[in-house]
């Protein structure tokens, strides 16, 4: 059937062509590729990409196979005489690697099927992830297979092969030799890679006049600038939440974006249960994931956070004996004073066990104040430590970019090598990089996608994905991870290592050699091979961490900076915020992340101007009204998104959307907040004018009702109240009265069950995307989401409690709860959904005729229906992405969470072969594995020692909609809050 141009993701007629394996553009340049230039498989037509090719390609991902890296590729392909020992067809392997986030490593373990990676998990050994992942890391695998990614190398419209490119780059480099590279500039992504560091050193050795600048639109430069202010040195603060009893976040989204959020959220969540519960205060403007977990959330404009921090300082100084803070403080008035007093008292009570964290959106002076408070409270060295940044570019802020822009303007740059992500789009508006960029003669751009910067390049080089290339990265604590590839590059592409190496004529060695040889030189020849293999296996190089320091802050300098801070005027503030889905915009083409509902607003396929209810009413606008936000003469048009709990007189604009040069996915999605962002006000600015345009824009939200209407759905109680209210929980658990004798599952070997601890859940949504990746869940597109047909098996419902102006929030992950008395089963006319003897509510896709009665009768509404052919004709690369253990569902059938039955079966096969029982905690569901806070556990309820059994027996346990008698296998644990009685 021809494409109908239906409003389904991937089937929209204009987008279809660009989502194919080869775009028209690529087809034009294809003929110029030298034969034999590309590795077997990479240049083949999609249909030729068979199992055998993958087996051959596997070589690249297996370090032990002894292949010498990816490039230049080997052309000899010899079929296996004996299969490699560690590859069994249909049994996946896992390899440790790492991805960069803000230049720092996030340790991962990637599942690979005969050389085809399909799933990303966190690496338990890695200090930054500790086994968890976030939604973005989960979606990285889709980036790899993205059909619209760039391919090949083009210089001024002329396609180049790999060798020709290296030759021409070498010639370009040579031309810069005579003036020592004075007219050569590099604009890089901040990175910690020692290999890149070494290469940069070599490049600068050859071209002493050249310079590397780094630019990151979202980064923690302010934290380092704050350390510079406080300690005289740029240091990275490292927060240890495990020992923090009282935490004050000064707009720090430390559970989702700031610092090492995966580790921090895990440590934080561990302290939300049990006896010593921590207490979190958050002062912020936009509602963040961290704000959702706050015991007390103080909403205020971002510009007012400084005053609040000073008020806390003043309290600490005047009442709690922290005299060194006296010069920093300034008492507040009214409500704020009361809050500051309570926070200060609480912080002081927990001296040495408290923590003040400042967020990346706050200026250096707030970070310096946080450092001073931590020092005064004796937290330094206990809950907070400082480390010299492992980044090659500790300063990746607008100042460096401004210098480069000036040089471009003055015609001082001949060659600009851009490896930073899309600077033309992300650069502060006042730098006018779009106009200035073309002034460089040779504009070498290494880009993953055909973005705005790539289109303005004279050398457009396709970048390899991190899962296709060798490399190395360091975590914040300095721990090194070797990035090992999982697959040969799917497209002709280059790594940053190779590009830099080309400037010192070393690129023909290939990335693998460059990385490995570098480490050989660093670590010493002796026993290197075994150590290298060990690093690859573990994903971390042991003993490479750097010891933290606890320098003393210079109070006088901070005081001077505080005094120099200009007074905050009244007026409407515009805030810019990194987005939970697209971060700074680099994931705008990722369909999983586009469809992923924002953890706070539940908006998919869009961004909106966040406003509080009161501000919206004052401006006379409602959700979906299009407003024009003007700041210093710049304007942006955005739809209103009313967020309860947002600060008044403040409009927050998430970054990363509204890109002009994008593919089919990101096309026309959202508005560009960068248009208002200037180098002097990277995160917020007061003095905006907001005007209603009269237009409307439909925002696709996956959840429309955020109130529980007094029903017992997501239960949250104050810790103190829980003591005497827990008896009421008996109404929500236990065996419901029934006239039918329930089936007894306790004699079975296995009784699978799940428990979700709402105290731990921060609502980040990593589980949703992990489930999507594991279970081949299709993306449906904005029109379908507007029709409430999103397919996520696991959704995270979010509810507001309390006043609409200043609500508290509860997040509740909800997938099929596998009822023992399942309402869906008895209404299916064809027995397509039936009960397994281990208690799984099973869905037989082949048998389903699609009456949808099961969904109607499901009180949890967790079933998803293939209203249209959502998978459609998949491009070959997307076929490679599918998990071979999971059926790709057809049009017209119902689907839902299976408790990852494929994972159960895989473990069962292993256990049976070994003649043993499956351990109670041996199986991890995909959502559980991804969860950074260990909120979800899965296992055997018939094993009393399993984690899930213990949680089912917890005093906080309750069953959702217990009164219906469905006897769900997924139990919830009540969310506890720990409010300060002084603020009650």
């Amino acid at each position, binding site marked *: 059937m021809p494409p109908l141009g239906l409003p389904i993701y991937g089937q929209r007629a204009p987008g279809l062509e660009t989502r194919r394996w080869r775009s028209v553009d690529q087809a034009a340049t294809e003929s110029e590729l030298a034969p034999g230039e590309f590795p077997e498989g990479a240049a083949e037509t999609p249909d030729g990409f068979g199992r055998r090719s993958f087996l051959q390609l596997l070589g690249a991902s297996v370090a032990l196979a002894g292949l010498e890296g990816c490039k230049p590729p080997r052309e000899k392909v010899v079929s296996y005489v004996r299969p490699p020992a560690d590859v069994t067809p249909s049994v996946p392997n896992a390899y440790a690697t790492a991805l960069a986030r803000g230049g720092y490593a996030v340790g991962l373990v990637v599942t690979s099927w005969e050389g085809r990676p399909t799933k990303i998990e966190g690496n338990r050994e890695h200090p930054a992830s500790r086994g968890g992942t976030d939604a973005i890391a989960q979606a990285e695998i889709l980036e790899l297979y993205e059909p619209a990614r760039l391919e090949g190398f083009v210089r001024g419209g002329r396609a180049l092969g790999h060798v020709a490119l290296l030759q021409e780059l070498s010639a370009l480099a040579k031309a810069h030799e005579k003036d020592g590279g004075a007219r050569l500039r590099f604009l890089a992504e901040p990175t910690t890679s020692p290999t890149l560091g070494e290469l940069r050193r070599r490049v600068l050795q050859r071209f002493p006049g050249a310079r590397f600048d780094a630019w990151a639109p979202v980064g923690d430069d302010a934290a380092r600038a704050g350390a510079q202010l406080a300690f005289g040195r740029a240091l990275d603060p490292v927060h240890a939440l495990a020992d923090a009893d009282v935490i004050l976040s000064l707009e720090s989204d430390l559970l989702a974006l700031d610092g090492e959020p995966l580790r921090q959220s895990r440590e934080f969540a561990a302290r939300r249960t049990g006896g010593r519960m921590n207490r979190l205060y958050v002062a912020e403007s936009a509602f963040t994931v961290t704000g959702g977990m706050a015991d007390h959330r103080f909403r205020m404009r971002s510009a007012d956070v400084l005053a609040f921090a000073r008020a806390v300082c003043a309290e600490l100084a005047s009442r709690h004996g922290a005299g060194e803070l006296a010069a920093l403080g300034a008492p507040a008035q009214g409500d704020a004073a009361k809050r500051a007093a309570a926070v200060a008292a609480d912080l002081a009570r927990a001296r040495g066990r408290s923590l003040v964290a400042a967020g990346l959106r706050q200026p250096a002076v707030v970070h310096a104040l946080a450092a001073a408070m931590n020092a005064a409270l004796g937290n330094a060295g206990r809950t907070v430590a400082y480390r010299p940044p492992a980044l090659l570019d500790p300063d990746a802020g607008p100042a460096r970019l401004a210098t480069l822009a000036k040089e471009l303007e003055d015609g001082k740059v001949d060659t600009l090598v851009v490896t930073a992500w899309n600077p033309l789009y992300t650069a502060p508006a006042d730098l006018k990089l779009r106009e200035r960029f073309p002034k460089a003669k040779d504009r070498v751009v290494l880009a993953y996608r055909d973005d705005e910067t790539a289109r303005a390049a004279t050398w457009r080089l396709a970048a390899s994905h991190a899962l296709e290339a060798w490399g190395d990265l360091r975590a914040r604590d300095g721990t090194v991870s070797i990035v090992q590839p999982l697959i040969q590059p799917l497209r002709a592409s280059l790594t940053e290592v190779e590009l830099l190496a080309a400037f010192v004529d070393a690129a023909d060695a290939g990335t693998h050699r460059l990385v490995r040889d570098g480490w050989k030189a660093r670590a010493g020849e002796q026993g290197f091979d075994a150590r290298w293999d060990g690093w690859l296996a573990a994903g971390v190089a042991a003993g490479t961490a750097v010891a933290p320091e606890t320098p003393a802050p210079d109070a006088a300098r901070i005081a001077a900076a505080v005094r120099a801070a200009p007074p905050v005027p009244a007026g409407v503030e515009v805030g810019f915020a990194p987005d939970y889905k697209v971060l700074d915009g680099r994931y705008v083409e990722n369909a999983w992340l586009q469809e992923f509902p924002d953890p706070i607003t539940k908006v998919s396929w869009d961004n909106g101007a966040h406003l509080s209810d009161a501000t919206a009413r004052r401006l006379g606008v409602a959700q979906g009204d299009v407003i024009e936000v003007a700041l210093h003469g710049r304007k942006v048009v955005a739809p209103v998104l009313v967020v309860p709990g947002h600060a008044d007189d403040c409009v927050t604009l998430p970054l990363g959307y509204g890109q002009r040069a994008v593919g089919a996915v990101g096309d026309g999605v959202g508005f560009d907040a960068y248009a208002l962002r200037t180098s002097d006000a990277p995160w917020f600015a007061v003095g905006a004018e907001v005007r209603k345009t009269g237009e409307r824009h439909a925002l696709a939200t996956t959840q429309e009702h955020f109130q529980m209407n007094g*029903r017992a759905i997501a239960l949250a109680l104050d810790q103190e109240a829980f003591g005497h209210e827990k008896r009421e929980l008996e109404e929500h658990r236990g065996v419901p009265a029934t006239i039918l004798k329930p089936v007894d599952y306790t004699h079975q070997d296995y009784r699978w069950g799940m428990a979700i601890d709402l105290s731990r859940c921060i609502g980040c949504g990593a589980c949703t995307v992990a489930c999507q990746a594991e279970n081949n869940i299709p993306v449906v597109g904005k029109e379908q989401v507007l029709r409430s047909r999103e397919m996520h098996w696991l959704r995270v419902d979010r509810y507001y409690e309390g006043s609409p102006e200043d609500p508290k929030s509860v997040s509740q992950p909800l997938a099929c709860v596998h009822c023992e008395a399942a309402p869906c089963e*008895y209404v299916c*006319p064809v027995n397509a959904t039936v009960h397994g003897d281990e208690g799984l509510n099973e869905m037989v896709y082949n048998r389903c005729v699609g009456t949808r009665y099961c969904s109607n009768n499901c009180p949890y509404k967790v079933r998803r229906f293939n209203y249209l052919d959502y998978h459609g004709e998949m491009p070959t690369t997307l076929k490679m992405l599918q998990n071979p253990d999971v059926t790709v569902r057809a049009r017209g059938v119902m689907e839902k969470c299976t408790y990852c039955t494929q994972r159960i079966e895989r473990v069962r096969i292993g256990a049976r072969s070994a003649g043993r029982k499956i351990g109670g905690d041996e199986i991890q569901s995909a959502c559980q594995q991804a969860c950074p806070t260990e909120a979800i556990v899965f296992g055997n309820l018939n094993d009393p020692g399993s984690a899930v059994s213990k949680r089912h027996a917890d005093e906080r346990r309750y069953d959702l*909609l217990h009164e219906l008698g469905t006897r769900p296998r997924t139990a919830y644990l009540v969310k506890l809050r720990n409010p300060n009685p002084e603020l009650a």
Partner: protein
Amino acid sequence: MSTVRETVERREVLDPLETSPVLVGRPSDRDLTESLIEPVLGPTRKGWVILLLLLMGGMGFWLLSLGMTVFVGIGVWGNNIPVAWAFDITNFVWWIGIGHAGTLISAILLLFQQKWRTSINRFAEAMTLFAVAMAGMYPIIHLGRPWLFWWLIPYPSTNAIWPNFKSALPWDVFAISTYATVSFLFWYLGLIPDLATLRDAARSRTQRRIYGIMSFGWRGSARHWQHWRVGYLLLAGLSTPLVVSVHTIVSFDFAISQLPGWHTTIFPPYFVAGAIFSGFAMVVTLMVPARKFFNFEHVVTARHLDNMAKVILATGLMVAYGYVMEWFIAWYSGSEAEWFAFWNRVVGDYRGIYAMQIFCNVVAPQAFWFPSVRRSLVGLMVVSILVNVGMWAERFVIIAVTLTRDFIPGSWANYTPTWVDWGLLFGSMATFGVLFLLFLRFLPAIPISEVKELRRELEHADHHAADREARVHVERS
């Protein structure tokens, strides 16, 4: 001695309970036959052709919508999660409800020997058949994979999977297929003597052949009549439980679920009453223009319309009682979700449709308390159309509006129909209209033999009346 007609007219004055005759005058057999086969054998009328073409346009829309549904998927509708059933099942229940009047009139009223059913039964039965045909379409096309609908039928398959008899949907299959079959047989059996009449009166050879084959060699012998009569009564007996069972089972589709607003024990009687209510309304809607157009006023009299209006009023009151009981139980049960679901109907996003339901189904039929409204063609038309609209609204409120709000607020979402949804609703009306027009043109819409029989019965009664009067007269004199 007065003429028969005068007697009838006088009785009209004398007996307030027998307000108007079921047959105007006592025309001869020949007159009756000729007037009743005229629409079939007479010339094609321009109005009929225009209306047919118009409705065939609507049928094209319906076919297009069906095609989209089957070839692209039911995603072309507005259904979603949580509202997995919407226009599809609403239309299904609406049509099947309309189909109830036929069996009721044919079977139950026959067994109760209600004379006024005679002239309208064929008409109502045809309406039933076509309504059931329209209704039967929806459960099939509403499936995600409609080509597998036969999996709901119990048959000894090699993979030994049977339908799930706990689910109400296989019961639906039995109920609807039985109903359709029995209704068809009943209708056709009733047609046989008239088909023979048509054969005998046919003007062309082709017509004679076709009607000849269709009349199965009916010669009108006493033995034929005897068998026919027994068969007809048997089928009437067989159909009687179906009047109750079909909509009872349709109501189980909802009642056996556990959704607030569906999980209600009053549904079976309430659905049956609603079905008869809407079925009679549809008969009136179709009959009022048809009797005018085809000159059936002498056999379908004001008496028929008056009686049907009374049935509408009675069943309307039953439906209203159902509404009240639903509210009472929602309150009495103390179930928060149930109470919320009912309030949501009144104050929720679809309150306009609920208001329409109450106005059309509860308020509008009260006009039938007034005899003048029951006799006024305009009044009958307006109220019966309102009832049809109201009953559709009721099913929409029960099915779709209930689904928009159930237990977990995080999953709530509204439903908006697409053009395909509207296409399937209005298109099915047009298709129904096409079938009905074809029926009116090619088959006798009024049962000729039964009307003739009725005339005899009436004459017989008239004679008795005349005798009585004569005796009274003699005694007086």
